[in-house]
């Protein structure tokens, strides 16, 4: 760049900003708690230090401490008013707007001018002599989007413009400008200056070298007294230079030159850009130069404020910067990453084969949002399941919050919130990232005949249930009656869905997984077609593709069809009155059983295993054995694992029933609901009962009929 007299224009490396994440946190907190809608400017403090590495410039840094303290914080922490050798305090101001439009609409030219005026006034009044850091005053405009946790911001470092610009006479490393004696003395003087807490944070100073090569560092205000008759003396204006470049001084020199020329009317200024490395003055990195200044004519006029430049460029463009801190500030995101980390640790530590992705993408349908449903939902979330639908048509009653862990007293008021709704709200309060949905619907039940005017709505409910089951990966039957489990069991058998049943007695429980449906095969359909005989047999529900027997469902052991179990009972027989400890145990086992199925290579087709001494401690699967049924008794503090195979006369899952449903659909359902004996006839149970009663006269006490436990729960 050529100047008027053939010399080059002195070019300064712009100041660069650096913002610590803590600054944004504190700004957000202040905005939320203290400022509110008040967008008046707030004084802040920036920090900078001289360049300390030859490859990288230093920055003007903002930290959390740059902002005034949040009133809720202890003010005893770091109430430091002085800087130190690594932190020169620089005064600044922040304009934080309430809207992004407000941010873009700020009068940037005007704001810069206002800050430049402050600098100019400090120069004229002499305040800059007392506290030279005001020469580096800066401006920050910002908009904090506290919903998205992103921050728009723009720094300006006002520099008074010399017009015509200063020209550079020479600029060299300091080591080339001093004799070795001088250099040694200068280094020593600097180290003393930097080590003293009184001067370490003073960024502008004088370097005085007398004719005996003795150097001293002085304050700017000592300039007049430093003039001496000593011809050999050198007097340099020095400053902490954040810039590392070998051929350019840093930005703070601009206002220093403006100050020097306006105050002392110097035409030629010798300056020293102080830089250090590893804590000591580095005279190879530091620069010494001479600049020629022409004082702009307008500056002598009283009241005139020089022009200023200084908006920070963003990658060369004159645009603001944006930073998004959602990942580290948004509480929901933090909760998600903490939860994921927890599961990943489990995966590393104990269970390398844990398939977290299958759990997080799993869609779970919970039928029932009561004692079992609430506990199952919570435990599913702990496993990383994020997609949960709860179906329940009841309202939260006053006694519920004690046993149903998603509800509180508030849910019971005013007649009680719908359980499905309250449960979903509760899940979201626990973990905002959960995708939970509530469905308020009653499950049609056999033995509860439907009056004709309600037929349509019941059919709608059946279809709705069918669709719900279809659109989920896993169904958990957590209702409080036997008959309410019938239709879901049938629908699950029809679509071969993984189904878990949990049922409670007073002090006993059953947790089981339903076997595969009758129209399924563990082989591919290709193989099935090849082996048509086994395919036929599969269709009859006698065997699955492997030739083994299907595992049973909840109804496989029953010899009567589900009927109305709620009418004509006493109060304690109607509600499920159970020992409180039972539901959490059963719910936990239900979820663990589910996770076991999901990790088993055969999934729903996995065979049922039982606990025995040979497999305790060393099982083939990392999660342990995969039982079919778990029946437990609190009275005994005991638990049994059992296997039961499917019954060809099962009212819910046998081949006959499923194919009848496939043939006749809703008509079949309605018939089963209205006439429970229909199911018994259809499945041949009626015949079975007749033939069983024929044998009664010849009953022989010695033989056990079967091993299955026929106790209803």
């Amino acid at each position, binding site marked *: 760049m050529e100047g008027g007299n053939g010399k080059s*224009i*002195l*070019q*300064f*490396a*712009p100041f*660069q*900003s*650096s*913002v*610590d*994440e*803590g*600054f*944004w*946190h*504190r700004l957000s907190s202040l905005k939320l708690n203290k400022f509110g809608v008040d967008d008046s400017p707030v004084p802040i403090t920036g920090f900078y230090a001289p360049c*300390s*590495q030859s*490859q990288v410039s230093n*920055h003007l840094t903002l*930290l*959390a*401490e740059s902002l005034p303290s949040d009133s809720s*914080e*202890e003010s005893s*922490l*770091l109430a430091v008013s002085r800087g130190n050798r690594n932190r020169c305090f620089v005064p600044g101001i922040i304009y934080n707007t309430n809207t992004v439009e407000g941010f*873009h609409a700020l009068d940037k*030219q005007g704001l810069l001018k206002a800050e430049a005026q402050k600098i100019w006034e400090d120069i004229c009044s002499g305040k800059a002599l007392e506290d030279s850091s005001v020469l580096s005053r800066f401006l920050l405009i910002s908009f904090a989007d506290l919903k998205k946790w992103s921050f728009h911001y*723009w720094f300006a470092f006002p520099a008074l*413009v*010399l017009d015509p*610009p*200063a020209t550079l006479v020479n600029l060299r490393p300091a080591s080339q400008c001093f004799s070795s004696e001088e250099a040694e003395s200068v280094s020593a003087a600097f180290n003393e200056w930097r080590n003293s807490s009184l001067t370490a944070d003073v960024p502008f100073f004088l370097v005085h070298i007398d004719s005996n090569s003795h150097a001293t560092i002085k304050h700017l205000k000592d300039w007049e007294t430093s003039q001496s008759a000593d011809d050999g003396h050198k007097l340099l204006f020095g400053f902490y230079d954040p810039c590392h470049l070998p051929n*350019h001084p840093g930005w703070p020199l601009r206002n220093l030159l403006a100050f020097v020329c306006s105050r002392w009317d110097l035409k030629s200024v010798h300056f020293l850009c102080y830089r250090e490395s*590893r*804590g000591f003055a580095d005279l190879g990195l530091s620069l010494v130069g001479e600049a020629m200044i022409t004082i702009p004519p307008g500056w002598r006029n009283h009241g005139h404020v020089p*022009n200023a*430049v200084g*908006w920070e460029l963003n990658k*060369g*463009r*004159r*645009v*603001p*910067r*944006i*930073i*998004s*801190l959602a*990942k*580290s*500030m948004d509480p929901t995101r*933090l909760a998600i*990453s903490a939860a994921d980390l927890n599961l*990943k*640790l489990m995966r*590393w*530590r104990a269970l390398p084969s844990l398939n977290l992705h299958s759990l997080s993408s799993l869609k779970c349908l919970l039928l029932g949002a009561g004692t079992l449903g609430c506990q199952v939902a919570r435990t599913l979330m702990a496993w990383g399941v994020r997609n949960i639908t709860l179906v329940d048509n009841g309202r939260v009653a006053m006694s519920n919050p004690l046993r149903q862990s998603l509800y509180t007293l508030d849910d019971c008021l005013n007649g009680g919130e719908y359980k499905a709704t309250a449960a979903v709200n509760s899940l979201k309060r626990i973990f905002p990232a959960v995708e939970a949905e509530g469905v308020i619907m009653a499950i049609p039940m056999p033995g509860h005949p439907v009056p004709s005017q309600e037929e349509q709505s019941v059919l709608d409910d059946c279809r709705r249930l069918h669709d719900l089951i279809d659109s989920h990966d896993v169904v958990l039957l957590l209702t409080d009656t036997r008959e309410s489990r019938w239709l879901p069991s049938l629908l699950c058998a029809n679509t071969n869905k993984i189904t878990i049943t949990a049922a409670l007695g007073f002090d006993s429980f059953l947790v089981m997984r339903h076997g595969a449906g009758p129209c399924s095969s563990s082989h591919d359909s290709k193989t099935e077609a090849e082996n048509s005989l086994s395919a036929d047999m599969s269709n009859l529900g006698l065997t699955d593709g492997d030739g083994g027997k299907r595992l049973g469902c909840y109804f496989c052991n029953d010899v009567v069809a589900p009927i109305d179990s709620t009418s004509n009972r006493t109060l304690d027989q109607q509600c499920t009155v159970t020992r409180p400890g039972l539901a959490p145990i059963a719910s936990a086992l239900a979820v663990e059983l589910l996770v076991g199925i999901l990790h088993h290579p055969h999934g729903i087709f996995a065979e049922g295993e039982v606990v025995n001494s040979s497999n305790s401690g060393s099982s083939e699967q990392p999660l342990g054995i995969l039982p079919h049924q778990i029946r437990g008794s609190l009275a005994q503090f005991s638990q049994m694992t059992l296997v039961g195979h499917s019954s060809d006369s099962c009212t819910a899952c046998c081949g006959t029933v499923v194919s009848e449903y496939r043939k006749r659909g809703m008509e079949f359902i309605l018939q089963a609901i209205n006439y429970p004996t229909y199911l018994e006839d259809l499945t041949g149970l009626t015949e079975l009962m007749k033939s069983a009663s024929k044998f009664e006269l010849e009953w022989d006490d010695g033989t056990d009929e079967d091993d299955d436990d026929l106790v209803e729960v």
Partner: protein
Amino acid sequence: MEVLGWVGALSSRDFYVAARAFADNRKEFNSAFPPWNWVPSPHLSQLQQQQQGYLSLERICLPGSSKEDVNEENHTGEEKAYEPVDNATLVETSSPQACYYDFHIVYSDSYRFPVLYFRSYHIDGQPLALEEIEKDLPACSSKVLLESKWAFITQEVRIPQSPSQSKLKKKICSMNHAELCLPHNNGVNRT
């Protein structure tokens, strides 16, 4: 309590001695690199103050690989922040974004062992993602990382409460305390 029952455990006093020696050692032998600074704990009684503290190494700059600026929204044209044309401003070619690391070696009372905490960030305060940090790890650590991710490095996340806590920290438990504590082991500029 200074009774140590575990192999490899360190007392708080031993940590103090070793940490000071490590820092001094590094200044002497690795003078090309920025020094570790001992920072005494501010809030303890005078008696303990001398010995309680941690080692700090901050603003270590790693010149970046070009960082894709995910924050770059499409600006609707440049801001008309009018400024007079200024020949005195040096226009620099944009260099790839550097990232910065702060390291702190802190004595853990529960593990009875030094723990390295570090945080990494870009100049605008944006913390580095774990994937980006993995690229910066020294070769021996990267190898171990592939084998057993959470064996020696874990992430600590805290919502900031106060300036001193306003940092996300990642923690490495050093498997080889010799690297950190024995003063004669020079040339250690990795962690």
